């Protein structure tokens, strides 16, 4: 062993190097903690969060009840109910159930939707106290979630 290495070993240079790293990091500017919910994370626009049924700007249903999302879903958790309108011979959406409890958030239903009506929002707070609430009905999907705001 070389003298230098021996000296380094005796004077615990390796240990002090490590100690220096941790000591340096004590400076408050290194802190990366995000104080949720006072501070909200930046969510990317492509984020796949809470699903939502979009409506046309004039308030009419954008969903055509085609069932493409039902077919696309790997977990088979979307249930679409529809009736055929007598006059226009078009399907009209009646119910739309989305079971969040089994959702993989893979986004396949969103991709499959022809009128681009099913949308994954950037909302990520979906915690619930019971399993019953995980099945979202049409009303909930159309309204979206009302978020409680916190300030720092």
């Amino acid at each position, binding site marked *: 062993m070389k003298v230098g290495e021996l000296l380094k070993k005796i004077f615990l240079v390796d*240990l002090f190097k490590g100690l220096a790293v*941790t000591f340096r990091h004590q400076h408050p500017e290194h802190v990366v*903690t995000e104080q949720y919910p006072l501070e909200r994370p930046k969510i990317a626009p492509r984020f796949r969060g809470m699903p939502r049924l979009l409506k046309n700007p004039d308030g009419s249903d954008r969903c055509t009840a085609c069932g493409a999302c039902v077919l696309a879903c790997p977990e088979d958790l979307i249930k679409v109910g529809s009736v055929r309108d007598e006059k226009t011979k078009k399907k009209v959406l009646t119910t739309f159930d989305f079971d969040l409890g089994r959702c993989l958030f893979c986004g396949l239903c969103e991709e499959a939707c022809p009128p681009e009506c099913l949308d994954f929002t950037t909302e990520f707070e979906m915690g619930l106290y019971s399993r019953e609430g995980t099945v979202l009905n049409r009303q909930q999907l159309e309204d979206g979630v009302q978020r409680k705001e916190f300030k*720092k």
Partner: protein
Amino acid sequence: MIQSFLSYLHSNVTPGEAGSLPWVVIYVLLVFLGISVGVIFMNWFERKVMAHMQVRLGPMRVGPMGLLQPVADAIKLLLKEDLAPTGADKLVFWFAPIWVVMTAFCSFIVVPFGRTHAITDMNIGVLFMLGVSSLGVLGVIMAGWASNSAYPLLGSLRSGAQMVSYEIAMGMSVISAIMMTSMATGTGTLSMIGIVQAQLQQHRWFVFSFFPLGLIAMGVFSIAMVAETNRAPFDLPEAESELVAGFMTEYSGFRWSLFFLAEYTAMFGVSSIATTLWLGGWLRPFPNLLAGPNWELAFSLVPGLSVIVLGALCLFRYTRMPRIREMRPEAVGLAVFGAMLGLLGLVQLLPGVRERVQDIFWFTLKVFFFMYLYVWYRTTFPRYRFDQLMKIGWKVLLPISIGVVIATALIAVRQELFALVWR
């Protein structure tokens, strides 16, 4: 009765020496309370320092800056269900944490927080402390054995072997410090107060005497004491990634918190030994160099002023807090805390109080230096393996400390030696 009670205040000795039983009781209670508060503060301090070293914030929500987090945790632990494993030896299982806490607190009987601030002064003080603090291992072994479970057993076996091995290196390095006490007077002392007074007489802390021998001895001691208190990087008995929680695995709730209390108390205990032996105990910086009434006054104002500065910092943070409803309890808490600190600081500036308090202040400061080291080690180092731990204890620390003892002895008697040789 009252006369004798009050007359102690004018005496210049510890209550134990004065033989005043009521004051002993008061001191015991004060020490117990002080250590408990210290443990609570230490818990917060450790989490905070660790958090910042790990680029986190640490406790922030309970109380101002999370100061009340340990209190909340303590309440939670008290309310938790107290479980004992089916096959456990109930009596021993119940007794083990009490034993550990008892021994940890017992060692504080001789710790001098100041010239008069010790419960008593024993002429074998250091020996007593080493002896009592090493009794703690018994409780750990009891806990591991009584749990009737594999992890605690392994943990307690490790702990037993580890504490016994490091005791020796610790004792050897203590011997070198004790030899230094005999330098000026020719008669050494084992009394904790005597050791500090010897440092005062010799005009230097023992870390710096016979440089670098004192430093090496303190280094050995400060490594051995980490092992002795089962802290990282020597925390094998409770290595959480290997043995889940070691000897504490089966404990929960209040009994677990007793172990926790004991661990931190033991840390305080060994740190106070180190402070007393090498860092001049309660002595303020440069007691001989910067002597004189003016310096005396200046240094006695430091404790009060520093507490006031802390309080002012809290009040300053309070003014910087956003005025919203969610933050109000926290903000008010911080303000009250700051005000209380300020008041405490003011009280410490009073003439009668400040002379008595300043010893404690310097002592605590030095102890917290060691506590900071504990935390710093814990965040930085990986854990040793069992065989490596033993190797370090027996093959590195023990020879070094024996070497230091021999070297100290040789230097101490160098004149006699020279005389012997030249004659």
